[in-house]
């Protein structure tokens, strides 16, 4: 009798706890949908063509836009790739091919350290390294800050993708008499390039949404970008300024800007997801 009751009790606990974990998962997904829903509804209703093509205008004047900030964000991403991709990809190749010793372990650890650095600290770093000596805020400083965020992501993804390439491919190249560097660049990197490219896209999606490292490096600008050694507008900083400002019109534009930014980032994430799933199982 008592055994039966304790079994029933255990059954109830079983159902209860498993039910609770399902509710947790539902809640997490619901949070995503709620946040995306607000951004979609409030952002989309504030969108129009001028928003993409015009400069910010004073309050009350119609046809205000963030065209300069969209261009600015693209320029900043370009600069970050220019500075960050060579370091990220080559150090990833080093880790995959030669990173077996103690130096490799240390490098892997430091790469992880760099991943964990708060992005605001990256901003301070770029400020002391670029802004102070140049004595001005600039697009270059913003690009350096974003590159520092991008590098560890690209390094790790390059290493992982190169390790996925079957050993036999490399051995085949070596057996055909190819020197090691030709086997690496011509066979291993070429096989891994698709995976590396998707990793780079994810890194771009990540830095496109960064605000903190740009606050006191790229600063912001009301006009179209003219030169890389001047302050430059970015979508994220513009959204931040609009959101924390006092005007209803600014808030509307902040929602619209967020909608554009989040749409961009989500498209990259979903595309990468679809691409990697068709290539190798559940990775990504």
């Amino acid at each position: 009798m008592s055994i039966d009751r304790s079994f029933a009790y255990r059954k109830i606990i079983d159902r209860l706890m498993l039910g609770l974990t399902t509710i947790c998962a539902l809640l997490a997904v619901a949070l995503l949908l709620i946040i995306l829903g607000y951004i979609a509804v409030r952002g989309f209703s504030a969108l129009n063509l001028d928003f993409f093509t015009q400069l910010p205008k004073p309050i009350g004047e119609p046809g205000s836009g963030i065209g300069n900030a969209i261009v600015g964000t693209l320029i900043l991403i370009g600069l970050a790739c220019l500075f960050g991709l060579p370091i990220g990809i080559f150090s990833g190749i080093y880790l995959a091919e030669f990173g077996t010793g103690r130096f490799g372990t240390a490098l892997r650890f430091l790469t992880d350290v760099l991943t964990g650095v708060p992005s605001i600290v990256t901003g301070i770093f770029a400020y002391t390294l670029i802004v102070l000596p140049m004595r001005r805020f600039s697009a270059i400083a913003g690009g350096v800050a974003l590159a520092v965020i991008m590098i560890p992501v690209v390094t790790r993804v390059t290493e992982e993708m190169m390790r996925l390439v079957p050993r036999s491919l490399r051995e085949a190249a070596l057996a055909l008499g190819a020197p090691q560097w030709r086997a690496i660049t011509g066979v291993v990197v070429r096989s891994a390039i698709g995976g590396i490219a998707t990793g780079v896209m994810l890194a771009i999606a990540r830095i496109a949404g960064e605000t903190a490292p740009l606050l006191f490096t790229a600063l912001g600008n009301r006009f179209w970008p003219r030169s890389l050694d001047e302050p430059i507008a970015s979508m994220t900083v513009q959204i931040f300024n609009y959101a924390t400002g006092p005007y209803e019109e600014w808030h509307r534009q902040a929602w619209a800007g967020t909608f554009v930014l989040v749409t961009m980032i989500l498209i990259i994430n979903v595309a990468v997801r679809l691409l990697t799933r068709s290539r190798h199982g559940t990775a990504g």
Partner: protein
Amino acid sequence: MLKPDELQLKLTAPGAATDLTGRSANLGDRIFKSVTLLFAVGVIAIVALMIIEMARNSTPAFHKFGFSFLVSSIWDPVQERFGALPFIYGTMVSSLLALIISLPLSIGTAIYLAEQAPAGLRALVSFLVELLAAIPSVAYGLWGIFVLAPFLRQHVEPALSSTLGFLPLFRGPTHGIDMFAGGLILAIMITPIISAVSRDVLMAVPQSQREAALALGATRWEATRVALSYARSGILGAVILGLGRALGETMAVTMVIGNRPETSLSLFDPSHTMASVIANEFTEATSDLYRSALIEIGLLLFVVTIIVQAIARLLVWRVSRGLKEESA
């Protein structure tokens, strides 16, 4: 026959390649390795430079205030007197609050994903939860200001203060823009990382553990608890990883926490964190001492997050490696 490793050794060892592929290939290999090494050293240089630059630029504040910087709660840019205590306190409390709120949610989600979800649904739900991590911080902040804060002010906080108001935590007027909102938005932001890492750790637990429990007559929940206790240090690592994220998170917190340098017990009071004071005041810092005080806070934040991340990664690495070796 040579094993691949030995073959590579032969190819990279000076002189050896002459026999196999000729001298020029050997030179090419050496150049290639040097080039990749050069860029790899670049990564190390960045970390080193980061520490050097921040230490150098924070020396004025360190010389002036010494260790009293850490315990003084006076933050007066006009008089040029700086103490970081309110910010350290704000960072600690907001991160702790985020962990407390996020913990049940993310562990529950991880258990659902690893133990329960049907295979087709698992990939989809995992992806959706991880998408929470892809939303930019500034978007969370915007949502926090205009949706979460008014909701807290009108519904949640009055309810909390009328039921739990006897605790000093839930006293005072409700603003919506306060420590509570900061902790809550952080909790949402760290949920994807804690649940994703915990899920991976749980899925690395050998199936035999659960099967053994089930064979002994355990219910599914009891078998899950066996798996949980098997994976506990990895899950601890996941939680600490989330903590590291919460400590350094800047924009969303800055936008909802109220930005007032006070140490108040009540969660309904505006507050400030180490990251948010840097974001707010760095461009306004006109004097060298002011700026160096902010950089010192940045250095402090850097050191703390690095230590936290290192502990977390060690835990997660050890567990998932150990589990893989055992199950192999």
